[in-house]
């Protein structure tokens, strides 16, 4: 009986963490923390959490480490010849390397296997927003 208690609690806790996307939240927060390396980590975290709270309540943009320029840079790496097109596999790989999940499997141009720069950026920003919105979706 005592073994069951632990397992049930564990399951509950795991379910809770999953539901509220705690893992993603922590990953985002720690990434930002390690990237900016502020002198006062607590203040910094408080600030980011406030921003996240506002994003959730008022629909503002959630804080995230990546931005438009990063997506730009990523595209530039995958497309060194500056053709402004990448293949679907490259597009997917680039976004995975940036840490995105929930990538749109059918962006514009997937049939020709030619993802344009604009599509790449748009899809990237969408995924980014989903990644940063680390709270329970109502």
């Amino acid at each position, binding site marked *: 009986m005592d073994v069951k208690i*632990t397992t049930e609690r564990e399951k509950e806790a795991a379910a809770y963490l999953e539901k509220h996307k705690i893992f993603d939240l922590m990953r985002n927060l720690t990434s930002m923390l390690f990237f900016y390396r502020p002198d006062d980590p607590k203040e910094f975290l408080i600030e980011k959490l406030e921003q996240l709270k506002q994003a959730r309540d008022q629909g503002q943009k959630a804080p995230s480490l990546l931005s438009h320029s*990063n997506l730009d*840079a990523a595209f530039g790496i995958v497309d060194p010849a500056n053709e402004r097109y990448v293949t679907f596999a490259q597009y997917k790989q680039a976004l995975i390397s940036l840490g995105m999940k929930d990538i749109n499997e059918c962006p514009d141009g997937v049939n020709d296997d030619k993802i344009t720069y604009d599509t790449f950026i748009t899809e990237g920003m969408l995924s980014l927003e989903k990644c940063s919105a680390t709270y329970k979706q109502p």
Partner: protein
Amino acid sequence: MLIFLPPRLWLLESQLFSSEWTTASVPQSRKEREEDFLFFLAKESAAFLLVPLEVPTMEDGVRPLRVPPQMSIYADQHNVIHLVQTMVSGLAVDQPEDPIAYLLLLLQESSVHVPRVVLLGPPAVGKTTLARKLCADLGAVHVTMETLLDDQSQLGERARRCALGRQEVPDDLLVDLIQERLKRADCFNTLPCGGLSTSASRVSGLGSRRTSSNSPAGSESPAGRRHSQTRRQVFARASCLRERGSDIAPASSVLLDAGEDVLLERRRGRRLDTLTGDAYRETSARPRDDAAEGRASDLQRHRCEVTGMSAAYRHVLKTVDGDQPPTDVYQQVVAFLRTRRCSRTPRVLLLGPPGSGKKHQAKMLSDKYKMVDVCCCDLLRWAEADPSWIGEEVRTYLQHNRPVPNGVTLNVLQERLNRADCSQRGWILHHLPCDLQHAKHLKRSLNAPNRVFFLELTDAVCLHRTAAKRTPTDPGVDAATVRECDDNARTVAHALGVYRTHTAGLQGVFPDGVHVDADQDPRYVFEALDRQLTVQTHTH
């Protein structure tokens, strides 16, 4: 405390900062684009994400991610890991509906360094004495069953009624009482420590996370109850109490243990000072045979329940032998409370006079923790063989038979420590040229050591050891070899002199270096070093 976390979260810390993280074998990809891709992003002000730890490459291989040293240093400096741990464990245990608000509240509290202690043990093992001493020294608040019952509030009333009626105080009531007590003003001081003693069958969670700098130490004293609980019941209760106590749980618990006859003996001589409530022992007390039975049954009850309690607290438990003199017990407990296990990339510096066993210790430590053993004597040889720019520089000097200048050796050292294997697995550095400049440079750089050991050895022993190393064992020693030995003795003496002059300076550069007596058996020295590696002392 981190019992309930899903395994992935362990991965985040333990794999990043653990010294035992071994690099996965990786099929080397021809193009290094994938690795470059990430480093490029890092440099071009993009995110360096800590997770995913494994980067899926085009060729379906995995490469372990390399953590830049700045991050490890930052993490050490600001105790980031502990902070994150506290946050996540709080969330996992409390499971609030609004995690963001909860975290905000948590972070706005002043300190997260709160030693909360429960003292467990059979009757008469010395818990009360220990608890009082701890509270006096750490500025703690000692919470016991008696003080809880004396509480003037409504809850206290109910508890008293139960106690008077010879009934068990129900668990919920007890936990409420504890929470109330700990929320009171005197528990809000900097680093107060509250103790709780309950009957042997109940081990409650103590200390609310909300009451910021609050750390209760619990001690157990037998109340007048004679219920024997089965192990399962006890464990169930302990877990329930801990859960119910909304993430109030001790951060450390100490189990004092001693043999039965010792306990019976002590119990006989136990008296309670009526004025101060201190327990003291009369060694020459007439045995009271009528109470002997009571003692034995108490002990038996404790034995039944101790397994349940230890299981409930197994993650933070330390067992201390209660049969030692009280000062020893106290020392051990304080040492335990002040330390906190932390996993980090080890960067160890071993300093010591020639003959103190640095090479031997370095080898043993690096075997155990899979660190890279960097010997400064071999640095130049390594640099010569290295194909990169630093190798070029060193080779030019060596080709022209010129001594390599200090600046270049410093660069070689930095370069070696910056290599992937060193920054991932950690390193242990020894035979540093006894130059203050080297030491200061090292400390200022990104590769500052996080553990410095000074191996202490007297001059006579140094000379003896180095002589023993050099003397050939066979009796056919000719004059030439003896002369060589003398020369070497002079070199050693010179090196020793140099070391001694620099010691004070080195100690100034590394003020938190640990001094270890190297005049013992190498195994003992190794153990001493080992102990220091994984602990981190609180500095308040």
